[in-house]
């Protein structure tokens, strides 16, 4: 068991890729890859702290991408799932991918490949859901503001979508669970960490952070939502399958029900 190590990285995706680079380069027998906040090192293996190196990360990124476009997005998406032990799974996945002749033909009957693609799919699904379920509220400083609380860390994935779509308005999407947000200032998108005193649920009570006109539009939307329903076709099961209850508290059309 020579050179068996646990690699410790800073929790960022680039940090993780740097760890992969170093593991490959130094032919390390990796027993685990852990984020530094985790602090649960294996009892018997040595640890090595990895310093994020964008250049090295990039080389791994390109290496995977050259094998398969599908694989690189699987890796990134699955990483953002924040699943316990995801790093080691991804490391194994990347090893398999690099060893394969043709990375385009992923073998779905392999357990790890399947697991990674499932995780990536779950994250992808939530990415789409967030693109759908973000509800902006116009603040008095003319920023369209939204709270979200996704299961996975999808903010990095939805940034481009919102930038393409809302190029002429300032907006801020804030992840309540992870306590950071993305802000578009009419030029580009920046990460912001905020500590909000008040989380803006779509509660009936009004906040003076927003224009009163904001509540008029919420009411109109809420009404609209009700009048499009066809009573003789009601199917609540299908409804909650599409709009899971855990998202309701941020949906203006669900104001009374949430």
């Amino acid at each position, binding site marked *: 068991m020579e050179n068996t190590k646990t690699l410790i990285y800073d929790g960022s995706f680039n940090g993780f890729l740097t760890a992969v680079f170093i593991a490959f380069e130094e032919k390390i027998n990796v027993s685990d890859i852990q984020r530094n906040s985790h602090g649960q090192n294996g009892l018997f293996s040595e640890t090595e702290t990895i310093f994020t190196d964008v250049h090295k990360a990039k080389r791994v990124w390109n290496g995977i991408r050259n094998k398969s476009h599908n694989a690189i997005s699987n890796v990134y998406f699955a990483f953002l799932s924040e699943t316990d032990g995801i790093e080691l799974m991804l490391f194994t996945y990347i090893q398999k991918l690099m060893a394969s002749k043709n990375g385009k033909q992923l073998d779905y009957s392999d357990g790890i490949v399947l697991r990674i693609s499932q995780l990536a799919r779950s994250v992808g699904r939530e990415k789409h859901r967030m*693109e759908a379920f973000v509800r902006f509220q116009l603040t008095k400083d003319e920023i369209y503001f939204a709270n979200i609380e996704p299961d996975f860390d999808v903010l990095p994935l939805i940034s481009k979508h919102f930038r393409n779509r*809302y190029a002429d308005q300032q907006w801020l999407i804030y992840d309540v669970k992870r306590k950071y947000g993305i802000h578009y200032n009419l030029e580009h998108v920046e990460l912001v960490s905020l500590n909000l005193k008040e989380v803006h649920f779509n509660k009936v009570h009004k906040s003076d952070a927003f224009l009163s006109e904001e509540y008029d539009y919420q009411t109109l939307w809420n009404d609209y939502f009700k009048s499009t329903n066809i009573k003789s076709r009601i199917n609540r099961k299908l409804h909650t399958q599409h709009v899971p209850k855990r998202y309701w508290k941020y949906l203006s059309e669900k104001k009374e029900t949430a």
Partner: protein
Amino acid sequence: MNFDRIQEKLNILADAAKYDVSCASSGSNRTNTNKGLGDASKMGICHSYTEDGRCVSLLKILLTNHCIFDCAYCVTRKSNDVKRAAFKIQEVVDLTINFYRRNYIEGLFLSSGIFKNADYTMERLIAVAKKLREEENFNGYIHLKSIPDTSDELMYEAGLYADRLSVNIEVPTISGLKLLAPDKKHEDFTKPMLKVKNELLRFKNERKIIKSTPKYAPAGQSTQMIVGATGETDKDIMYSATYYYKKYHMKRVYYSGYVPVAEDSRLPSIGSQVPMLRENRLYQTDWLLRFYGFAVNEILDKEHPNLDIDVDPKLSWALRNMHHFPVDVNTADKRMLARIPGLGMRSVEKIVNARRFRKLNWDHLKKIGVALNRAKYFMVCDSRNWERRDLDAEKIKGMILQTSSGKFRSQYSNQLALFN
């Protein structure tokens, strides 16, 4: 903004528009330009779902529910005693923009009752779209419902601003149309459709030579048929749908189970069941025709003028064509794999991918995520035990219904992924 007045109008005019089932906001290629608002490229987004389980992606409203006509199946018809309202052009623009900015919607679906005549009404619909595009620099999705009998010039103009155009044929047979919409002629529908089709073709050709040719209805055209208002068979409906797909290059045909909105001796009475399961079967059939390589006469013909209610159309086809089965998943071509009941296109892709590495057996198939409860009766793989043994079609049907009836009987909506 006079909020109370807008609120009242919105309630009336959204309520009247909800029976139009098309809600798609996908298939356009309008990207955000000049740092404007919105983006209607690639796939559409359902921002919410109604309590009846349908997707909400567009602000779907009528410009007005005043109408000079009296189509029996329509809430807006002149003889119906309902509150009437009409939006001003600017009001629709403001609502659309403000809903869009808050990420409630992908865009606007604007339809209308007919005031005065077709062209007068259509001009107003176009005016809304034009304002959105030119004054608001709006690049979101716009679907305009064309008014039957609109002139060619206006159909041309509409396509310059809209992503999608549609004329709803509503009644699938000409005799049914005469009965229920005596004010309208068949040509009133087909003429605008033909114009749109021709413009789309012309755009495609000119685009090859002149890159800057202005976009014309980039998401194409669609139409809707009401199901169960007159006595037509599923065969009538699907043959007519196939005709519209071919002849007018429809992107989509929608099927809308008739919701009784009036007491009228020509129609099912108020309170009768909306034929949702039938509607779902039609969508499944449509899907098979568009993506699974089925021809309409394989599924519906003189002897089988109606779709089975208890099993989906693919299973029903397979049970009638047992001589094609079992299919060997390790060797069959994609076309045949796609015909195995229970196998969706995604599973087909996965099988083709995975079988490059090894011969697949039941365990592999399960791991890949193939739903075997139906499929297993119709396939063989690299395992000895073949579930079908010497079962005949009747027995297989019985066994499948026993194990899965609860599941797919409760799933009525057309919004579901159909054949997972």
